[in-house]
């Protein structure tokens, strides 16, 4: 008897507990959505990385446990549930009395009678059917609030994407500027361009300010425009290359000239065995193998055969300064062109956002379009063009020997071929730096004893012929 009655009460109390839990969860959901709706105007204050669509979930995760803690199921709640059963079935407190008696160890006959009568009254009674779930105002409001919230998120999402796009666009310009400044710095260091190095530092500073958020997009634009104007003014004041003979020379030619000057300077180094006079003669002999330098020296000093070493040295100093100044000038011109291009891009983006045309498309796609439109500034900056026909790759010959025909004759050569698709885009290392490095290595190899004495001139001529071929181009 007691077991069935106990089970009946257990079913009742378990059912009420379940309804309470459901009610608390629905309340938490309702209040989370309501708060999110009320606080939705403040979503603009959230940082970009914070997604306002998760605000209701966050509030729910905080509110639900709090509600469960504030309203735990207590003995009084069980009593109330049983009391409600009494009232509903008009049992005149038989249920409550029986529920308490079940918890007593000793039960007299009078208590047993109460249990019996209570069990009789509760036979066939299903508490779930009597105490059905009731729809509270929270349960009715929650779906409405959810729909409203969805609408708000939908409307607000466009604004957030726009703001995000604007921010990403602004930071992209600064990132481009920073990348350019780094390349410029590396180039200036490798070529010894002092003014370019100074400009590179200035550009890096401007980019860093924008990326750190110290200035806004407008501020970046003004800074870039100021630097570009400064460079333009300098260019106009300078009015052309410092030496007209450099006007037609390409950058590579100037670098070759610089390398030849370094080579000649090496030859001018005083030798303890030969003395000052001997190095001058050697330098002149070497000059024969430095065509560009020989040409330039010939322009300035028609009869240079009898020049002394110290005069040659001072001439080289002057030439070096001129070459460096020309390279510096050209680099600054290129910098100015880059800054102008960057400014045009920033203005175009700003106009696009203001007029609202084409809208902020996916940032990645927009960047791709820009890359396709932008001209490469440095060698290797040219984006790779997609060829219509697939390029046939050379057959893979790993370490296979190949028969080559060179200047001296024919012979075996070794090569390693790698299969791969070239990808367009900016190279990480500047071409000038590579060439300069190669030239230095070649000079060092020539100076070393690994190459036989008889073949040194031949090897030197070979490398120099490479530069002549490019100069002709």
């Amino acid at each position: 008897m007691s077991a069935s009655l106990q089970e009946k009460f257990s079913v009742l109390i378990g059912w009420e507990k379940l309804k309470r839990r459901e009610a608390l969860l629905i309340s938490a959901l309702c209040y989370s959505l309501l708060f999110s709706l009320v606080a939705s105007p403040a979503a603009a204050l959230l940082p970009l990385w914070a997604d306002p669509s998760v605000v209701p979930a966050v509030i729910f995760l905080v509110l639900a446990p709090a509600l469960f803690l504030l309203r735990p199921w207590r003995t009084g709640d069980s009593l109330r549930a049983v009391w409600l059963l009494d009232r509903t079935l008009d049992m005149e407190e038989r249920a409550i009395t029986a529920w308490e008696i079940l918890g007593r160890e000793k039960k007299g006959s009078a208590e047993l009678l109460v249990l019996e009568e209570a069990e009789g009254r509760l036979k066939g009674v299903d508490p779930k059917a009597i105490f059905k779930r009731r729809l509270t105002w929270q349960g009715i409001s929650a779906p409405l609030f959810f729909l409203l919230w969805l609408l708000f998120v939908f409307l607000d999402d466009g604004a957030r994407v726009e703001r995000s796009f604007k921010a990403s666009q602004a930071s992209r310009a600064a990132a481009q500027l920073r990348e350019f400044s780094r390349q410029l710095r590396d180039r200036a260091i490798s070529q010894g361009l002092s003014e370019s190095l100074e400009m590179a530092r200035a550009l890096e500073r401007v980019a860093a300010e924008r990326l750190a958020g110290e200035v806004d997009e407008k501020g970046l634009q003004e800074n870039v425009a100021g630097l570009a104007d400064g460079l333009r003014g300098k260019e106009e004041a300078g009015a052309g290359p410092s030496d007209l003979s450099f006007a037609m020379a390409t950058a590579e030619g100037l670098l070759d000239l610089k390398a030849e000057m370094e080579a000649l300077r090496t030859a001018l180094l005083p030798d303890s065995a030969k003395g000052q006079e001997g190095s001058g003669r050697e330098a002149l002999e070497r000059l024969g193998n430095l065509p560009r330098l020989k040409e330039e020296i010939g322009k300035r000093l028609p009869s240079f055969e009898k020049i002394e070493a110290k005069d040659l040295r001072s001439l080289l100093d002057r030439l070096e300064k001129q070459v460096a100044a020309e390279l510096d000038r050209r680099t600054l011109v290129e910098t100015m062109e880059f800054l102008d291009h960057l400014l045009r891009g920033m203005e175009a983006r700003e106009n696009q956002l203001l007029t609202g045309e084409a809208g902020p498309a996916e940032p990645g796609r927009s960047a791709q379009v820009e890359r396709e439109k932008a001209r490469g500034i440095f060698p290797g900056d040219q984006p790779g063009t997609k060829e219509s026909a697939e390029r046939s790759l050379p057959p893979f010959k790993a370490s296979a020997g190949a028969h080559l025909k060179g200047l001296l004759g024919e012979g075996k050569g070794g090569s390693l071929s790698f299969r791969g698709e070239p990808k367009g885009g900016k190279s990480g290392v500047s071409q000038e730096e590579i060439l300069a490095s190669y030239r230095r290595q070649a000079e060092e190899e020539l100076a070393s004893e690994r190459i036989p004495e008889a073949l040194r001139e031949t090897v030197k001529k070979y490398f120099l012929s490479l530069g002549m071929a490019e100069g002709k181009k």
Partner: protein
Amino acid sequence: MEAITEIQERMARARGAFGEVKAEIARVIVGHEELIDQIFMALVCGGHCLLEGVPGLGKTLLVRTLGEILNLSFSRIQFTPDLMPADITGTNVLTDDPSGKKLFDFQRGPVFAHIVLADEINRATPKTQSALLESMQEQSVTVGGKVHRLPSPFMVLATQNPIEMEGTYPLPEAQIDRFFFKLMVRYPSRGDLGRIADLTTASLPPAPDKVLDGDGVLEIREWVRQVPVAEAVKDFAVRLVLATHPQESQGDGALPLARRFVLYGSSPRGLQSLILAAKARALLSGRPNVSFNDIRAVALPALRHRIILNLEADAEGMSVEKILAEALERVVEVP
């Protein structure tokens, strides 16, 4: 341990006896159904009642009839200002024994009856009142150092005349608190008056049958105490008693009327009366346990004489009934 069926039988017997008593009384007394119920409840709870009503409402007839039906001895004491305690309790009287020796013989007073009607108790002096009250409390009389037990069951029904209060000695509150119930004897309704006229001015009604005796009453008294009461119901009674107090520290907080008009709230005796009376009501109704409605039904008679009002209540015309009505309305069954 008794079987459940035995419990059910005795419940049925108690209810049956109660029904028969009521039916027999109804043959003699017109109306007063509630009063009869409450007096019987007080009897089976071992309590005494204080009846308040104007003269001529049938109080004496009721009590006498009850005594006859229950086959219990009945006595009526008319309290007057010159009544002495010995007039109630009895006294030692010098008599001669058969051998002619003088000895003191205790002559029992009218209090030595099962049911005593103390008419207009407020007319006697406090000393005389206390003699009766002492016997109510102790169920014995001490005279000349000797204790004389009163018969069992023993019940006193004292009356107070609400009019003609001049020259009376109102019972002190502490003494009133000893009464189980304070019952108001209402003026009969129009229909009842007509029936009273028919019943009393025609041929004399037959004598009521004896349906129960003293042992039966004592048995029912024992059964009453065995009726289970749930903690929640008991807690409700406790909160009800505490709600009659003006202090906020008592119970769930003082009610507005109690805070304003009550000087002292009910004593713990009020709680005892409340629960015992509720048990009696449950038993006589054929239910195995006490319900909230039982508590509500007996709250007024059990508590109305235990609440002392202040002067503001007198000035405002506030009654104890209104204060108890507020308590019954605002104290929830299950908090």
